[in-house]
């Protein structure tokens, strides 16, 4: 007997966060011993636009037993090898943040030190010339790495671009197949217990009352449970990341989809371009202090590849996080937990991270504060690491052509980031913390890409002769070229393994 066991979980809100939570919990909850119920209303729209992800999503899908090709077909997904940043350092500039790695470490020393040594001696090759991801991306190539492919192709890291609404639908089917129940309805009231302030139940507009042991708040920015009911509080990071608005619109795709996301800096923010199989997702994230809604919409519409397929959708947000992600018997997952602009495609990862930590620290009805505190501590650390990495993109800009860029270029930054940047600047040193999402490749790609090239390199690099280093780097480039040459195009790969149905006959209503 175990009377303290969490048996009933209610997830409030559908969308990506809600259905990812439902999928994971319905799959992982002991069969027949727990109920997962998701409440959502078709009247309330979801934020979901085109979503770009990072490679960690494969772990989530794998853990759920989701077949990758099925997932790609069902969500009109394409492969993503990294992000191209255009006009970030200065107008006319571009760089690529690849998944995977730059080159290979040699003699136990990270690759970028060798690259930097040759650069100091006049070699003007870009560090991304040593990334198989960048080379494949710019040649529209893709192959799924397999063990027999050898070391070069196995350095290829990939994620996906997908239609978030289709992903939510896909996960809904998956969750319901695993016993999750969906209730259509709007929450009218959140009922708290008098004795301890826990959420006892929610009352829906039709009068239905849903009780649960654990509530998952996936209500988006609003934070219906975590904030409106439990008043957890919010930590505002907009002094570092001042964009607070977005406008999104899908457009017709022109040609074959490219296997990377593009982020183009604009006057008061940046524009994303996410290629899917059936269309292209676009959005402009901007700071309303420097640009009006109308101007932002105009900027976006004048920078589309193809004909718009819907009306522009406007969003407002405040960058930051809840003071507590888990409060009493409520865990906030997704935008209700915090918001960070999708510059590095971390939204889905933060959902995934919240779910996996909740599962690792799964509570009983008492909601032991020890586990709750640990959950909050881990998430706080994770959010702060991502925040610092995002700020890096802004603080390193040289742009001085608008008030927005002047602000971000000169703003103060957190001490944790200052320390990291100082270490990079001196000799490209980087130490990854256990719970830190972005690795040395990511930090170097953005820092070097924006002109913050380390002033020196690890002197140990001199252990290898210059000739030896030059030859090693030449070999890496040749091996990358050869590997990319042999790869199929992304479109050919998709056509062969995971082509989605024709959108106009199968999923036309999603456009």
């Amino acid at each position, binding site marked *: 007997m175990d009377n303290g066991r969490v048996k009933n979980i209610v997830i409030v809100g559908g969308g990506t966060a809600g259905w990812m939570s439902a999928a994971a919990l319905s799959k992982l909850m*002991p069969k027949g011993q727990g109920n997962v119920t998701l409440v959502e209303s078709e009247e309330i729209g979801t934020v979901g636009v085109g979503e770009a992800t990072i490679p960690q999503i494969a772990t989530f899908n794998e853990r759920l037993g989701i077949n990758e090709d099925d997932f790609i077909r069902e969500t009109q997904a394409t492969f993503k090898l990294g992000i191209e940043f255009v006009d970030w350092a200065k107008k006319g500039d571009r760089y690529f943040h690849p998944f995977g790695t730059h080159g290979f470490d040699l003699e*136990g020393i990270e690759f970028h030190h060798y690259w930097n040594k040759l650069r100091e001696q006049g070699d003007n090759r870009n560090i991304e010339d040593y990334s198989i991801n960048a080379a494949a991306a710019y040649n529209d190539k893709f192959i799924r790495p397999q063990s027999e492919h050898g070391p070069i192709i196995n350095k290829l890291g990939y994620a996906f671009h997908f239609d978030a609404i289709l992903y939510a639908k896909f996960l809904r089917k998956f969750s319901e197949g695993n016993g999750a129940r969906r209730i259509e309805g709007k929450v009218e009231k959140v009922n708290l217990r008098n004795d301890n302030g826990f959420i006892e139940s929610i009352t829906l507009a039709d009068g239905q009352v849903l009780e649960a042991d654990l509530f998952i708040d996936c209500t988006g920015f609003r934070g219906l449970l975590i904030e409106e009911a439990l008043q957890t509080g919010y930590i505002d990071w907009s002094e570092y990341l001042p964009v607070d608005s977005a406008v999104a619109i899908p457009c017709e795709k022109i040609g074959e989809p490219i296997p990377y996301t593009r982020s183009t800096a604009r006057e008061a923010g940046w524009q994303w371009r996410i290629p899917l199989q059936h269309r292209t997702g676009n959005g402009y994230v901007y700071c309303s202090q420097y640009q009006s809604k109308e101007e932002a919409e105009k900027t976006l519409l004048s920078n589309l590849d193809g004909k718009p397929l819907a009306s522009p959708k406007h969003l407002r947000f405040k960058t930051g996080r809840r003071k507590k992600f888990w409060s009493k018997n409520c865990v906030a997952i997704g935008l209700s937990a915090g918001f960070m602009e999708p510059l590095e495609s971390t939204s889905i990862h933060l959902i995934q991270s919240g779910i996996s930590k909740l599962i690792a620290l799964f509570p009983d009805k008492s909601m032991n504060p*020890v586990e709750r505190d640990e959950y909050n501590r881990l998430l706080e650390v994770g959010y702060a690491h991502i925040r610092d990495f995002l700020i890096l993109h802004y603080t390193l800009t040289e742009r001085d052509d608008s008030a927005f860029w002047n602000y971000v270029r000169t703003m103060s930054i957190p001490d944790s980031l200052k*320390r990291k940047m100082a270490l990079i600047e001196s000799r490209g040193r980087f130490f990854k913390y256990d719970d830190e999402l972005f690795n040395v490749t990511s930090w170097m790609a953005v820092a070097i890409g924006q002109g913050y090239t380390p002033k020196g390199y690890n002197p140990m690099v001199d252990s290898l002769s210059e000739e030896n280093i030059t030859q090693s780097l030449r070999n890496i480039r040749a091996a990358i070229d050869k590997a990319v040459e042999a790869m199929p195009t992304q479109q050919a790969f998709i056509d062969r393994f995971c082509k989605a149905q024709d959108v106009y006959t199968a999923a036309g209503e999603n456009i």
Partner: protein
Amino acid sequence: MNQLRRIIIIGDSIEAWLPAAYLRARLPSDDYQITLIETAENSIANNGDILARPTSKNLHHTIETAEHELGSKAKARPALCAAITNDKGATINLPFGNYGVDREGTEFQHLWKFSGSEKPLSEFNLALVMHKASLFIPEAPKGAPAYDYGYILDEQGYKNILKSKANAKHIMADTLSVKHGVHGIDEIICNDISHCADLYIDARNIDYETAWQNNHLKIIGGFDAFDHQSGMRLHRIQMAMERLFKLWPDREFAAIEIAEYNRLEAAQSVHMKDMNLLLQQNVQGCSDALTRKIKLFESRGRIAIEDFEIYSKAEWIAALSAMGIVAQNYDRLAHRIDAIALAQWVEQLHAAIANVVKQLSDRKTRKH
């Protein structure tokens, strides 16, 4: 040229010879001069056995020392755990292998607790079971709990190996005096002769607050008796060298890099101290991190992992359990597995481990 070229290492036994061997392997011998001033001052050498944790395999790979060389010259014997005896006479074995086998993303200790097995958790740790029975095979059979192994080495023999790898200029110090200046160490007077270097690696056991200042890097301080038994004696030098290598300086000794070294060193020291407090079974004054670890373990047998951990989850479980801290409950997700089937599986795993041990014992008996 601003490169540092001259390195002096001060100390005794492996504390001094290991950095010398490591740097010799990493640095081109033509360009770098390594001098080792051997002094028994503040030495922690005990000329007995020394434990090399499994992570030492990376180190031995770097200094090109094969297992057979450790065997022939340092009488290497495999170690499946760190066997600690504390001041109270209690023996605590920190295993180099997992407890049981995880299933469906749930760690074994939760499955074991849910199964209600009466067999002690330690009997599901193949490394511990084999250690107790004085048995060894290098790799766990398929399906059995995984483990790694380290070595118990004869200190003198090991020191000789390191010495041969170091190829350093060696000075035995009858008298030693270290002269400090504004920029760290100015010179070392050894046997009345002055020696200067760009970097001084101090491997004497001297307490310090800051490991690295200017050209003076201290790698052994606050040595605890447990460090002998837990394998930290060797491991902390290995960590110091790996950190130094990643932050290899020039003669400017950039403050930001030294600060980073010290920050990482301090973080790791906290974990070491915490483990030593647990082994001493007196956690008064422990860090917040250990308090969190204890509370989380007590609540449901979970191990919190912090940044820059040194010990594995299994070692923390062993130390916390030895301290008498019992997990009150287990991860509820263990319930995903049918209780009867789980209980059977747990018993089968126990029997499989016992079978491995029996087969090894029989083989050992036949050999004899």
